[in-house]
């Protein structure tokens, strides 16, 4: 996904002279072809995230469309004020490409885990927050970024992620994609973002075997949130389970819950939010190890849905 994303920066730069790339201290040879072909639109500025964001703001002010890239937690946490003031307050079309969103850098420990990036980015006025599920969808997102008039946070997954997105379902920033529709509207709905959509689809397959028909709705855009699709699926659902690779406080599940509570009030279905609790992860291992610890593997998601459905039926 990361390579696809960067290749797309090069493709977009060929297509449009406004596109520039600005990285911090990334891999040697990164976008070497672009650097060779258009050296004045390729920047590598060292470990200076605050400056990188301000610099891209200045470029955008003068008509360029900068794609800024570094590790997700550093492009969000480290330079949050620059993102807020230089990009969002000025509403400039800078794209922040965050490598290794969520738990990708599990072996590197909590300094490198972007667990609250979705929460803090969506809190900023004018910011668009995206989290696609695979490389194919990344291509569709990147094509859509060119003329989007606001700053965008592009959260990257690990890379080599299974392709589950489908071109025929279309793509537009701010429009959620129903990936699987239950036969009955009165069923469980999994609402997910990023690679959690992959795990949610796998969970839905497991749930069918248990007789629980489950819809899966993929939100590649967390902000602006597709309220209509969220409400359409939630209105008659027995249960909504949100799934995200990040902290639950202020994250994707919070965004969904806000919409359901505000628009459906007491008629809102039961909602369960899966994601990280209010803590920094204590373990290392692989991304899947942390998924396992936080109940984000397909069988665990299925179990959470199954348990919640059973409890609801008991209460009923």
């Amino acid at each position, binding site marked *: 996904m990361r390579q696809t994303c960067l290749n797309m920066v090069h493709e977009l730069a060929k297509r449009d002279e406004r596109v520039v790339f600005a990285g911090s201290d990334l891999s040697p040879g990164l976008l070497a072809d672009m650097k060779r072909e258009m050296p004045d639109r390729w920047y590598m500025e060292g470990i*200076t995230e605050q400056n990188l964001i301000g610099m891209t*703001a200045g*470029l955008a002010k003068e008509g360029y469309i900068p794609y800024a890239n570094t590790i997700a937690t550093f492009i969000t946490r480290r330079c949050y004020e620059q993102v807020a003031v230089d990009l969002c307050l000025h509403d400039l079309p800078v794209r922040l490409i965050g490598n290794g969103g969520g738990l990708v850098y599990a072996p590197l420990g909590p300094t490198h885990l972007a667990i609250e990036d979705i929460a803090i980015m969506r809190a900023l006025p004018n910011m668009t927050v995206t989290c696609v599920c695979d490389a194919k969808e990344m291509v569709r997102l990147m094509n859509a970024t060119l003329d989007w008039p606001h700053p965008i946070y592009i959260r990257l997954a690990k890379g080599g992620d299974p392709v589950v997105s489908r071109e025929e379902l279309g793509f537009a920033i701010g429009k959620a994609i129903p990936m699987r529709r239950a036969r009955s509207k009165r069923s469980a709905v999994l609402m997910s973002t990023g690679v959690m959509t992959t795990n949610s689809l796998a969970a839905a397959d497991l749930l069918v075997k248990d007789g629980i028909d489950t819809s899966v709705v993929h939100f590649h855009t967390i902000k602006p949130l597709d309220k209509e699709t969220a409400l359409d699926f939630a209105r008659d659902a027995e249960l909504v389970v949100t799934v995200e690779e990040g902290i639950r406080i202020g994250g994707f599940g919070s965004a969904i819950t806000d919409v359901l509570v505000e628009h459906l009030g007491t008629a809102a279905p039961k909602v369960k939010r899966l994601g990280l609790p209010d803590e920094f992860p204590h373990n290392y291992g692989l991304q899947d190890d942390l998924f396992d610890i936080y109940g984000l593997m397909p069988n665990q998601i299925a179990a959470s849905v199954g348990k919640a459905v059973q409890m609801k039926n008991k209460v009923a």
Partner: protein
Amino acid sequence: MATSAEAVQIIKPATPPLDERSKYLRKLVVRTLEGGERGHVGSSMSLIEIMRVLYDDVLRYRPKEPQWRDRDRMILSKGHGCIALYVMLADKGFFPLDTLDTFCRRDSILGGHPEAGKVPGVEASTGALGHGLSISVGVALAVRMQKRDSRVIVVLGDGEIDEGSVWEAAMCAGKHHLSNLTAVIDYNKVQSAGPTREIQDLEPLADKWRAFNFGTVEVDGHDVEALRAVFHRLPLVQDRPTAIICHTVKGKGIRFAENDANWHHKSKINKDVVAKLYGALEE
């Protein structure tokens, strides 16, 4: 490596007395403070001659066409000194003088820190410190890529350059040989909490900028002729950005406020205070 800029150090032993134009602009500052009943007094007064020379003698701009593509860009990174900018923009006709009377009021375009898109002539929204130089680096790179001859001037406060982001940006400007970029430092030696030498000593300041590959010069920031002379020599060193360290006096022109951190910002500026401020300018 020391640069030839050292040869153009222009520091006069004594600042000439303020002339009528400098006093007039300061009176507009007081008028603005009266309108808002508050404002950064000392931080604005130290900037007056810098702003005056920039807008009277240096910058290329069109007041009725503030987004004119070939204008020079002036970014006030020390956004809290905005009253000095507002009075210059009003004086030049970017907006009517009586807009100054609305300073900080509910529906005014003139806030306590300047906002781009709201105030004609304001290039960037500043106030959070340590942002302007990075933005200016991006603008200077863009201008160069577009092969335009616009110059980029960024005005920084001395307290502001405590921020690490300023030095990230300085490194970047030096690396890119941004000779179309000039950083002006309003070195009034007093920050909000007290003297800079006590709070966070900046010395040796000129050496710092030189070490970051800026052509660097020091000048009396209230000496109009000296400022003109420096600005007309830009860039001081070929293929390098310029740093102009302006030695200024916090609260310049208001005797009882000069060099006093208590006058960094004042609220509750009532008629009596306004009268005292006007009175000081007549001394």
